[in-house]
């Protein structure tokens, strides 16, 4: 498998030739590898900061009983987190991204769009809307297919959750009359 991550928005499958001569464009491999190196360092530092905060809180705010478990863990946790940060700083080679970690930019955009719509108009409307738009434009399905799927998706939620399980659906920030929010 490829050891370098493709740029966001690419197919995710690196051609063998690409690894030998990575393009040096702003959106090419070189750029992505450098970003991943920084990201790995940021991730490690974030963990170290969390542990430092936990150590501070444990020893300033908690009783001896409440901090027993945390204190048993926090010293090795801080030592290892510091070691990991040093490793990231001394990393000679850029981080290789495993194939399963390569998400396309469009996947992230569609995922964000779903949850943004959920926040705005609630699940009852988001489901058919998202299913239709996603299948039509992201998956390239024909209009009737996407329409039927959207209708079935709405029916599935309505019948299984609302009618059978009597679970209220999460509502949206924008009140929509006639929609069960």
């Amino acid at each position: 498998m490829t050891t370098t991550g493709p740029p966001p928005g690419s197919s995710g499958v690196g051609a063998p030739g690409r690894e030998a001569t990575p393009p040096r464009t702003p959106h090419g491999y070189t750029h992505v590898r450098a970003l991943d190196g920084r990201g790995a360092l940021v991730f490690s530092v974030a963990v170290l900061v969390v542990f430092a905060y936990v150590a501070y809180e444990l020893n300033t705010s908690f009783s001896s009983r409440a901090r027993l478990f945390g204190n048993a863990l926090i010293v090795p946790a801080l030592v290892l987190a510091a070691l990991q940060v040093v490793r990231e700083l001394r990393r000679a080679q850029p981080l290789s991204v495993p194939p399963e970690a390569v998400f396309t930019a469009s996947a992230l955009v569609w995922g964000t769009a779903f949850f943004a719509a959920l926040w705005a108009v609630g699940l009852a409307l988001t489901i058919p809307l998202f299913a239709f738009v996603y299948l039509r434009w992201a998956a390239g399905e024909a209009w009737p297919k996407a329409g039927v799927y959207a209708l079935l998706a709405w029916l599935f939620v309505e019948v299984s959750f609302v009618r059978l399980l009597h679970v209220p659906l999460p509502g949206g920030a924008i009140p929509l009359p006639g929609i069960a929010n």
Partner: protein
Amino acid sequence: MDVFVGSLFTVLQWPTVGLLLLGVGIGFVVGILPGLGGAVTLALMLPFIYGMDPVPAFAFLLGMHAVVATTGDITSVLFGIPGEGTAVATIFDGHPMAQRGEAGRALGAVLFSSLVGAVIGAAVLALSVPIMRPLVLSFGPPEFFMLAMLGITFVVALSGGNLVRGFLMAFVGFIVAMVGLDPFTGRPRFAFGQLYLWDGLSIIPVILGLFAIPETLQLMSTKGSIAQGATGPIVRVLDGVVDTIRHWSVTLRCSLIGVFIGIIPGMGGATAQFIAYAHAQQTSKTPKEFGKGSIEGVLAAGSVNNSKEGGAIIPTVAFGVPGSTAMAILLGAFLILGLVPGPDMLTKHLDVTFAMVWIIVLSNFVAVGLSFLLLRQLVSITFVKGSWLVPFLLVLMTMGAYTTHNDVLDIVVMLAFGAVGWGAIRFGWPRAPFLLAFVLGPTAERYLFLSHQLYEWGFLLRPITLALIAVAVLGIGYSVRRERQDRRAARQPTGAAA
């Protein structure tokens, strides 16, 4: 014995048997479709067990989980693409057999050996109960605390990847488990003034975020279906069944390898299949045929796949120490159902433990029987595009998280842990130690508190505790040595090239 037989009738009662069939049906599809893992589906289905009794809930969850590996073998044989990570070894010989027109025979062998493996795994689980009971009952809080630590150490040390990052993820999991009211003083910890956090973080939004969100994004990134054109005729399936019986020794030995590797936390199915495959090759009279379409290779991979499940349930049920991501999620199901793994599961709730044995056996009989009957139709599932599943998965994820408290904040928690899960995959931090530590955190804290109350820090010097510490140190030592060897091996070609 009465409890053992009685639990069979409990499983066969309605609606338990219906839920088992539903779980098997879902497991079927999940096993065949790559990109949708068994552990993720287990997490997605977890919210549906609220309000259920333990046996129907396990019939649904375990029935689903028990057959995922079985049907995962089908795509390995036909397309050379594993439906599950545990079905990789099936490709080595199953796919070459399919390419030379023996797909039916390979499928018959892999499905029937999977069934035999599942039955052997379940039998060992049932037989282990009388052996485990006195052992578990002799354990006190210090031993249970050390067992929890040992389980996490093994998962970090043996599951591959970086040791330091594995331990760090476990520490993060423990700290996240501390969020909420302190069980001993009733004071909020890391709640940031939010009433929502007083109850602690629920397991469902955390699991869905860590596992389901990254996998759904992955599915959105790879849009195609796995089937690449028509498959050849699937005939002579029964020949594979006859092969399984003819090579019973390979099937039996590899099933037992699966059981014992399943018991060891952290080893998991991905490792078990290669150990069993290597064993079958070493003991075969025709080792050179392995990799070119050997029926023994197919049987080794098939039998180990399901036998490990029976083994993996033993430490989960008896000690509350899950050995894999799927078992950690199953442990989450125990907590949702109000069951405490450990001595109670071998005494007061013995019927539930034995019901789990029957669920594994029955679900595999149903799955393999249906596979033989509907093999041709099952193959058509592989033509379903990944993009068709995306809206459906997003609904299940959202509703799964939301129904925890009917609170939008549950969805926010899921998204936050989705970001953690994405970062973990992206930067090579393993997620399993986090999940195990998060699930085991409250139990470990309780046992540490009790041990400290009873013996101060002297509890670390008790004989069994010392032995468990020694085993943990050995596990870490083994992993450190392996990491060094891997690093040396990685440096060698570079040096040679220079």
